[in-house]
């Protein structure tokens, strides 16, 4: 992988971290606020189903995780296991796709 590509990965990870900082804060604050009076799962679903705003928010959240986590894992695999060959990047593309698929499945699960 070229130095330029490695730099793009680094910048992308920092940018996705900034998005995640916002998303995690909103996510946690909403959860704490929503369930403080004892909200049931059915009541939560009634608010999220068909709500395009929450769909967009959690789609961005999942996208940020999909980008952020595999790039971080790339360094972990190098530093802990010495895995530096191109196969590492192929594996991480797989991890990203899995994270994206599982994340969007959960998001659509509470939207549809």
């Amino acid at each position, binding site marked *: *992988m070229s*130095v*330029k590509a*490695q*730099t793009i990965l680094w*910048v992308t990870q920092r940018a996705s971290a900034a998005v995640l900082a916002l998303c995690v804060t909103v996510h946690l604050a909403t959860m704490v606020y929503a369930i403080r009076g004892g909200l049931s799962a059915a009541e939560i679903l009634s608010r999220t189903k068909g709500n395009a705003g929450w769909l967009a928010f959690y789609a961005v959240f999942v996208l940020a995780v999909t980008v952020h986590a595999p790039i971080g894992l790339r360094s972990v695999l190098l*530093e*802990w296991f010495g895995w*530096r060959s191109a196969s590492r990047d192929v594996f991480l593309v797989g991890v990203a796709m899995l994270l994206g698929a599982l994340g969007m499945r959960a998001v659509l699960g509470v939207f549809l």
Partner: protein
Amino acid sequence: MMQVRVWRGKADGAFQEFEVQRHASQTVLDVVTHIQRVLDSTLAYRFACRVGMCGSCAMTVNGVARWTCRTHVDKVVKKEQIEIAPLRNLPMIRDLVTDMSEFFDKWTKAKGRFEGARTRSDDFARVFPDSEDRKLVDAGIECIGCAVCYSSCDVVSWNPDYLGPAALNRAWTLVKDERDSKKIERLRAVAGDAGCHSCHTHMSCTERCPKQISPTAGIAGLKREVSLALFRKAL
């Protein structure tokens, strides 16, 4: 008297114990020299100036990389015991001597050589000491290449390709030198997995540098400069 454990042999070696008399204002280098001159002449170690100018006597004292010539025994001795080992992250040659080739090769890889654009027929460059860039250069320029930072860096031990704090600090002082003409080439050399982007900002280099330089700050500066070069499509 104090017990001094000194590393002997190569990586598969072991510590050997010596008893050494305590003296006032005694440095760790004095202790090593005493052992080599009086107790065991086969002990290999490296030193030159003895006054903190050359950077050749750095060793691991009680687990911490230090200049032994500028480390008083009083400051590091614990229960009348001291452990002296070679620098970490460098191949051992014998006893307390490490092979520094890799360390200096990485300075070359980081393009740590000044590349000016002027010739001897040009006038002197006028660099103002109070300019922002020159202040940044001055903050990092006093490095004497002792490898204490390199030995203290966890990223170097995890990723042997990592250029390390000293080479990156050197590159930073050149990137900020307005007379230098190879900025983009140098940024390419220090970016990516083996360069500034691998730094975890643990700051062990900054904590241990005997010259009070902060390679961490220089590496952060390189990250900024590389990102700017990327956005300007210059990388």
